[in-house]
């Protein structure tokens, strides 16, 4: 069946992670995404692939780049050049969506602001993905990956019990903004289908992530009390923790939501009497005595592998989950059975496994149709078949360095 975004052309100016991750999913689900990079300033993920610089076209072999940019076409265009900007506007005339994640002032300074683009294509869907938004006193402040969750309030409620705030193990705000981008674009497309009008859409990364701690904000506004980090524990569910398993740095989580699950846990660990012990027989009692309870549970988990313990507990109806490492994720039977990892071939980088489109749409599934573009790989397609430029114009763009088939590597070594 035809993919949900079939027929939608997206001009993608985004770099690094949040934007490219989001536009990649637009591509996964059928959009034609044209990724624009400057011959002198490519997407810096090309340089973060740990590829030795003496390998031919090393910048096309970055796994980090190639995972986040598949299902896109690559077009080299210098936006610092006036001719380049004019080419971009022409591209917007024949496109449906433009996405950018520059700092708030950059597109305005380039003369590629919403009003200018809309002047060339009145129905354009123009999406900005700034850290703080395009307005407000902090709009021009720098906010990189790790800052977003700090600004969103999440870090203040994360951390071990009795200790200070702790960051998430990765730049959490980025992929959440990318995921939101798909919804934001789809909503704007729906609106255009119904009204004939385009939209200006703004995914301010800190606001998108603040929505993930909304109950804490509502709570604070009602009660004026700050909640301290609680580690892996829960305000009133117990047991709810991470327990040591057999092996090196191996761990298992258990979170019992009711008395039945707790009773099943007690039976599995050979301590059925605990379910009726007054220290643990009710949720409130378990919460009050959870340190004692955690020690009893860990005595059992520490003797077993994390996967083994998870399966034993799950068969008895106890919510338990192994703490999986990256190698374990890539061999996990559930993710394998879902075909979460699929082998793909890239002309420069070879064949390896990457993640499949995450959401399974039964009638209109996503697909990996294209490997990530090599630098400037689809210049000809974009210039000739999308923009319909004549050969003389194209030759001039190359001669002036507005486009190029090879990047200026000197700036990136």
């Amino acid at each position, binding site marked *: 069946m035809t993919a*949900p975004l079939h027929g939608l052309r997206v001009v993608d100016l985004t770099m690094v992670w949040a934007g490219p991750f989001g536009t990649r999913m637009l591509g996964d689900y059928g959009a034609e995404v044209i990724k624009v990079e400057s011959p002198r300033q490519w997407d810096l993920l090309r340089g973060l*692939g740990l590829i030795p610089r003496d390998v031919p076209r090393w910048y096309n072999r970055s*796994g980090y780049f*190639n995972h986040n940019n598949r299902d896109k076409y690559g077009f080299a265009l210098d936006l610092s050049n006036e001719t380049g900007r004019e080419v971009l506007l022409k591209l917007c005339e024949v496109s449906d969506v433009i996405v950018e994640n520059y700092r708030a002032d950059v597109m305005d300074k380039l003369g590629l602001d919403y009003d200018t683009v809309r002047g060339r294509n009145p129905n354009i869907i123009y999406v900005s993905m700034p850290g703080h938004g395009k*307005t*407000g*006193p902090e709009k021009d402040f720098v906010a*990189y990956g*790790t*800052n977003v969750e*700090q600004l969103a*309030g*999440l*870090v*203040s*409620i994360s951390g*071990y019990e009795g200790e*200070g*705030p702790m960051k998430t*193990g990765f730049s959490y705000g980025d992929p959440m903004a990318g*995921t*939101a981008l*798909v919804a934001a674009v789809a*909503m704007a*497309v*729906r*609106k255009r289908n119904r009204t004939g009008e385009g*939209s200006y859409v*703004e*995914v301010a990364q800190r*606001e998108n992530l*603040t929505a*993930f*701690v909304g*109950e804490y904000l*509502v709570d*604070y506004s*009602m009660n004026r009390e700050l909640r301290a980090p609680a*580690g*892996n524990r829960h*305000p*009133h569910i117990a047991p709810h923790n*991470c327990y*040591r398993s057999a092996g090196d740095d191996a*761990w298992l*989580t258990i979170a019992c*939501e009711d008395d039945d699950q707790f009773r099943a846990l007690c039976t599995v660990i050979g301590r059925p009497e605990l379910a009726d012990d007054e220290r643990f027989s009710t949720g409130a009692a378990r919460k009050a005595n959870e340190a004692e309870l955690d020690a009893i549970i860990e005595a059992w988990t520490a003797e077993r592998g994390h996967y083994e313990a998870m399966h034993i507990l*799950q068969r008895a109806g106890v*919510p338990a*989950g192994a703490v999986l490492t990256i190698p374990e*994720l*890539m061999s*996990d*039977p559930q993710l394998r*059975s*879902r075909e979460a*990892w699929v082998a793909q071939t890239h002309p420069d980088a070879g064949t390896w496994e990457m993640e499949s489109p995450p*959401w399974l749409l*039964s009638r*209109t599934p996503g697909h990996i149709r294209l490997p990530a573009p090599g630098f400037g790989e689809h210049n000809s397609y974009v210039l000739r078949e999308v923009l319909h430029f004549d050969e003389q114009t194209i030759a001039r763009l190359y001669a002036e360095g507005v486009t190029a088939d090879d990047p200026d590597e000197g700036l990136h070594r």
Partner: protein
Amino acid sequence: MPQPLEGLRVLEIGNFVSAPYCGKLFSGYGADVIKIEPPGGDVSRTHGPFKDGVPNPETSALFLYLNTGKRSVELPLDEPAGRDAFLRLVETADVVIENFRPADLRALGLTYDDLSAVNPRVTLVSITPFGQQGPYADYRGNNLTTFAMAGQMYITGTDDGGPLKNGGYQADYQGGLNGFSAAMLGVLAAERDATGQHIDVSVQHCMAPILEAGIPYYSYLGRWNRGRRGNHMASFIGIYPCADGHLGIHIMPRNWKPFTDAIDRPDLFEDPRFVTQADRTVHNDELMAEFYAWAATENKHELYERAGKMRAPIAFVHTMQDLLESPQLNARGFLTTIAHPVAGEATYPGPPWWIGPDGWSAGRAPLLGEHTEQVLRDVAGLSSAATEGVAGGRP
């Protein structure tokens, strides 16, 4: 200008966080969202934190936040009359959101086949820890166990402290947002083709690939860095305690000059140990010691404002109080006050993304069963007598 999701009717039979967050987004952007609550209500009503710390199903901050703008219908789906009434609502719906264990949904007789039999245009969005198929599909999961099984937990925290869940219900929220994005693709396809489908969202599958470069480095290069890095990716990317809170710095090569300017430390800029990012990495521990000493006496608000204006990448760890008082969030109108008849007034985050001045609306959360009669009568077309037999749950 109409809201972007105007004209859509969404039924939510989900509990707790993931499916309700998905439903909340539908509601905020203009859809008519009918939340079906089991007799007694969504389990989040029993979770705090409550207004004034007093348990009350109408004052749970978690429920109030996740269910803004919805209508509430109290309906026992596990009884024939309740199921029948629900299926009459499905006839009028564009989207159904659920987060039951697949076996439990089958037991209710509310699978995609059951729904599409009464309305072939309906899109069913299932948000579950592991997805609809596979060896763990019917395993029990929740926020903590899903965070673990999806790889985000192993890399959060310190080596000594062990894997750490981050605050709140982050696995559940990720499920809700992914469910919404997937659902919107389903809406576009359904409106184009006049046919619905089943959308299967596995939270584990959504979460596992997004560990920065972790998966590509391992999959493509066979490289894997065991362990956890606590609050520091490096000395120059991390969190430091300051006089009244915590600072977060994230220095890319081009920021070294503005950073040392903003903290008024030209000596660090001149120091031959710290000239390039590679130098700073080699002398990581020495630089970290400098940063700890520097940060200890700084005031977070004052520094943040000064550094921001100088384009130095210094943020601070915002507490809920900082969010509420944030000049940026207030200037943008992101924070909104919503009044509720039982809980009173509270401040809520606004639209996660902005799509026009009228794109988002913020109604209050419903009382339990507040719209049962209205919805069963006006939407399901049941007579008052029939409504009475169904509403209010079990006799």
